[in-house]
Each structure stands twice: as C-alpha cells, then as structure tokens.
C-alpha cells in the first residue's frame, strides 16, 4: 500500500492527539471540574483517523455522543474543543453545546450527537447536497453497533440506496451499547443488513490504521464515483466505561487490559512504520512530545478562558427572528 509520508505523520499525530485528549479528560473529569457527560474514544482512534484520512474539508461527517475522536480526525481545532468541554466562551460552540455537541461546519463536521441514530439521516441529506451541488464530496455517518439498530439508521440505509447517495455508513462496532452487549442487542449481522439493502459491505480491524485507511479508501472511492452507498464495519474495543463513571461490571476481567496490550492502534502503527523503514522512532517521539504540549496548553487555556455571558444565552436560536 502506498501512503504518503505526510499522511502517515498527520495520521499518527491525529491518533496521538485523540489518545492524549481523552486520557487527559479522564483525569480531569475525576477532579469534578468538567461538567456533564463525557464519553471517551480511547482505543478507537484508528477508526476515525483512518476513515478521515481519506476525506477533505469538502466532505461531511456526522458523529455520535462519543465524538471527540471524529472531531479531531476531521481537523476540528483542539483548544476550541477543550474549551467547549469546559463550557467556556472560547469553545468551538461558545460553551453552549459541550462534549456531546461539538461541531465545526467549516471542517465538514456536522456535529457529535446526543441522540443515538441521529447522524445517519443527516448524512443522507449531506450526501444529497454533495450530489446535487456536484461538489464531489461524500458524506460519512459514524455510528455504533447500538445505533445500528435504530429505525433512523435502518431507514437511512434504504434511503441512501434508493437515492443512490454518496454515503459511507461506518459502523463502529465496539461490542457494546452502554452496558448491553451487541451479541444480545444486534439481530443478524451487519453484513447481511448491508446486503439486504443492496449495498456493498466491507469490514476491517479497527486497531489497524492501515486496514482502516485502505478499506475506507475503497468505500469512499466507491461512493465518490457515484456508485451509491457502502457500509464499512469496523471492529473495535473501547477502553473506558460507556461514560466517565461507569464501572464496567458487565465486561470480563482482563478484557480491556488485553485490548490495550494487543490492539493498541498507536503501538501497532509505530511498529509497522518503523519496521518498514517508513518513519523513524525519533519522528514519532517528536510528535508525542508536541501533542503532550498541545494538550497541556489547551487545558491551561480552557481553565483560564472566560465564561459565556448572559447575552450568549439568548443568541443564535435563529438566524433571524
């Protein structure tokens, strides 16, 4: 597989940024300073980054409640995200959305989402825009195994096929929806679902950046070429609770430890690129260090940033009223 050096460096940096961002939130949340619900994407970084490495700002994605990773992968600025999670006026959504609603339309990021299954219909619409406006863009709906059962998701698979839309449905399958396993909640298979709606099905190991990058590349190329939607099923493990505060008693002892030991996408990436002589350890170390600094300063800035003011409460309900 041919991947530009630039892409490799950028992707590693994005994955490292997500990891550090989330690990830091895990720590900061425990201090009680972060308001609201926080769902961490740790362990799943290669999925968001591998898919988005095939996209540009002209393409659109929708995310989920577990949205920080997709935002970073799509290029949303880290300090604005951190400030948003702290509810500050410097946040990307001016402190009005919080963790579950981070969005940046200038980056083609149509929002994390507090509603499970909220994204897929929106991506049918984004794909319709790309198609009718002939801008060459595609839409990518990220959603979980749990969300794959929502009527809105299944209806979208049908609509996208009927309208032959340039959408890629990315099922991020971490085996759980909250505290319920997908072996209980998901009937049939994602593959049979895709085939049932007449769309191509692809799958890959979500801890392997290269597998995701390549498979997503094919899926996106298919959609971009006007051949209609594709389902991409990514197999993953989440490293933390459903949200911060979840003790995960429903998971076997050692399940997370094993995922961390054997399926750490950052470790696997490093091993692969250094063994193949594509990148040097020192280059990756430099990225690690730069990201550490970036996250540190984003937290310091977020804590020091001004709070929103009374005028913000009433602003932006409408464009005009």
């Amino acid at each position, binding site marked *: 597989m041919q991947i530009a050096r630039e892409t490799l460096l950028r992707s590693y940096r994005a994955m490292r940024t997500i990891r550090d961002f989330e690990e830091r939130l895990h720590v900061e949340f425990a201090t009680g300073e972060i*308001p*609201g*619900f926080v769902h961490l994407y740790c362990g799943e970084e290669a999925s968001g980054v591998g898919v988005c490495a095939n996209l540009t700002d002209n393409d659109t994605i929708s995310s989920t409640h577990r949205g920080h990773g997709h935002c970073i992968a799509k290029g949303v600025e880290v300090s604005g995200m951190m400030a948003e999670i702290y*509810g*500050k006026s410097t946040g990307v*959504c001016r*402190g*009005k*959305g*919080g963790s*579950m*609603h981070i969005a940046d339309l200038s980056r083609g990021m149509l929002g994390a*989402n*507090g*509603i*499970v*299954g909220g994204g897929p219909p929106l991506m049918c619409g984004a794909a319709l825009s790309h198609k009718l406006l002939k801008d060459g863009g595609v839409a990518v709906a990220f959603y979980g195994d*749990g*969300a794959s*059962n*929502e*009527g*809105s998701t299944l209806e979208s698979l049908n609509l996208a096929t009927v309208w032959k839309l340039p959408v890629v449905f990315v099922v991020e399958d971490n085996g*759980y*929806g*909250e*505290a*319920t*396993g*997908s*072996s*209980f*909640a*998901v009937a049939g298979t994602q593959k049979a679902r895709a085939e049932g709606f007449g769309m191509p099905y692809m799958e890959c190991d979500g801890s392997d950046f290269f597998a995701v990058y390549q498979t997503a590349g094919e899926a996106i190329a298919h959609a971009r070429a006007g051949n209609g939607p594709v389902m991409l099923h990514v197999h993953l493990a989440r490293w933390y609770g459903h949200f911060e505060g979840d003790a995960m*008693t*429903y*998971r*076997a*002892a050692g*399940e997370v430890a094993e995922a961390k030991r054997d399926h750490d996408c950052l470790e696997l990436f490093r091993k692969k690129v250094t063994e193949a002589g594509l990148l040097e350890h020192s280059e990756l170390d430099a990225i690690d260090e730069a990201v550490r600094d970036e996250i540190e300063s984003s937290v310091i800035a977020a804590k020091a940033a001004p*709070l*929103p003011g*009374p005028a*913000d*409460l*009433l602003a932006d*309900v409408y464009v005009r009223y």
Partner: protein
Amino acid sequence: MSKKSYRQAINEALRLEMRRDPRVIIMGEDVAGGQGGTSGVVDAWGGVLGVTKGLYTEFGPERVLDTPITEASYIGAAAGAAATGLRPVAELMFVDFVGCCLDQIMNQAAKFRYMFGGKARTPLVIRAMFGAGFNAAAQHSQALYPLFTHIPGLKVVIPSSPYEAKGLLIEAIRDDDPVIFLEHKVMYDDEEDVPDESYTIPFGEANLTREGDDVTIVAFGRMVKLANEAADKLERQGISCTVIDPRTTSPLDRDTILDCVADTGRLVIVDESSPRCNMAADVSALVAEEAFDALKAPIRRVIPPHTPVPFASVLEALYLPDAAKIEAAVKAVMNHKVTEAA
C-alpha cells in the same frame, strides 16, 4: 416509614406493583444491563441512573426486559402489549428521546380508546427523566411535559418529591390509560420519609404544600421545591404564599387553582419547560378566563427563555427558574399598583 430517596421511592413502587400483579412488566435500555456482556454479571446497571436496580434479580428476564436502542419499536411494543393484556412500564431514559418514538405515543397509544369507540384500554406507563441542571445540554435536559399534556388521551404526572413519586407511580401503574411519568433527574438523591407499604395518590388532585393569604404560586415538579424555598424567605419578610403542586398536568386540578387564586388574588406560575405554550401559559389562560375578577395584579410567570437548554453551568443557571427569580416575581405582584382608568 423511613427516609427514602426519590430513586428508591420509584424503585419500591415498581417492585410492589410487580409483586402485586404479574401482568406488570418493565422494559427499556439497560433497565437491567449486562445482557450479552462478557462478565456474566446481570443487572449491571439497573437503569442508567440505577432506578430499576435489583428488579431483574427479583423478577427475571421475562418481566424485566432489556431492549436494543430502538425506542420506536419498544415503546410501540409496550403500547401494543398494554392494549392486549399486559401492564408495561416502559422506560424512555431521557424524555428527549421521545423524538424517536413520538408516533407510537401520540398517534397510537393516546388515541386507541377514542378512535376505537371506547373499546380499548391501554394501561401503559412511560417513565422518563427530564429537566435541566445536569449540564447535559440541549438534547438531554428538556422539560417536555407540555408536549404530552397537549395530546388528548395521555395522562401526565410530574412527581415533586420521593413521597409523591411512590404514590403517583403506583397510581399510574393501576391506571387503565396511557400515563407519562416524568422524573426530574436532579432529584434522584432527594430524601424524605416515605411509607414502606403501598399507597396511591389520585390524579387530578393538587397538593397544597403550604397555605398563605397574599400570593398563590403554582409550580411543577422540581419547581415546587424552589417555590417553597422562596416562600420560606418571603414569609420572613411578611409575605405569605400558597404553593400548589398540581401533581398531574393532565388531568389538571383547575378547581384548586381557581379557589386559591380567589383567596389570594395574585398568581405566580413557575414552570421549567420552554415558555411558548407551556403549563404556565395554560394555567394563565385558565385563571384569566375563570378568575379575572379576583385578580389584584397581572399574572407573573417564572419561566426559562425561548432557547434550547445551554450547556455551560453559568448559562444553565441563567436559563432555569430559581428561588430568587420566584421571590422577585412574588414581590412584583405584591407591589403592583392598580391604575384607575380615566
């Protein structure tokens, strides 16, 4: 009698009714939790905030049903089961998720009895948590009771304390109509004395949490607590208030509201829901129409602005009614000077 939290009171109501009537079942996302998990632990969550904890272990998988994340199908299934012999209590988790299943509630369950010429009974309870104060932002903080109150065929219950929650939930489960039972998520750890045995609180009978001479305050759900805090403070300043907890918005105890307004001549309404077409508007219309001559001052509403619920704590606090805002509204109606027409 013992101290119980709002959470425990609800759990106990479910437990007692499930023991009493085998047709009572519960369903919802992670009402037990752990199904399909790798640890073998069952009842891993007992509801996202632990309200249904322990019910799975007592009643088993046939009566405590975890669902996939598919609100339209399981809320609809609960409605269908209710119309055919079971008495389901379905949990919608956050009431905001009603967006995913409103048809089954609004066009199906609510209308069966009327559309079918009185031939159907739909003893369905839908439990959901509502309200702001959790920094849960725009899609997890709404107070949607006006939406349900608007729909003929639904009953709508908003318990304002642990005692109220237990009695009203038992009543809801025994009721033969579809009932929307809305729990304020900020109140789950509130405690008070609650009887251990079963009791019911009838729908459509308001509770006066205090009686006074100067101003009537009508408040809903968690706002009842805030209204009483404000009334305590006002009492010390020589202003005495009646505080009415209507308990149910549908049916609404119009008589109690009108009687109290007739006594005090002044009305403040405290409502956490979005201001247009909310309960404050509804009660205002009632009083303007039926008790116009009793009013000594314009009706005042303590309500949020017409915006989604913001995330940041500072904005959420500005958004929500609070005791200080209620106190100010009461003083405003007390200070109202009637201007004589020329």
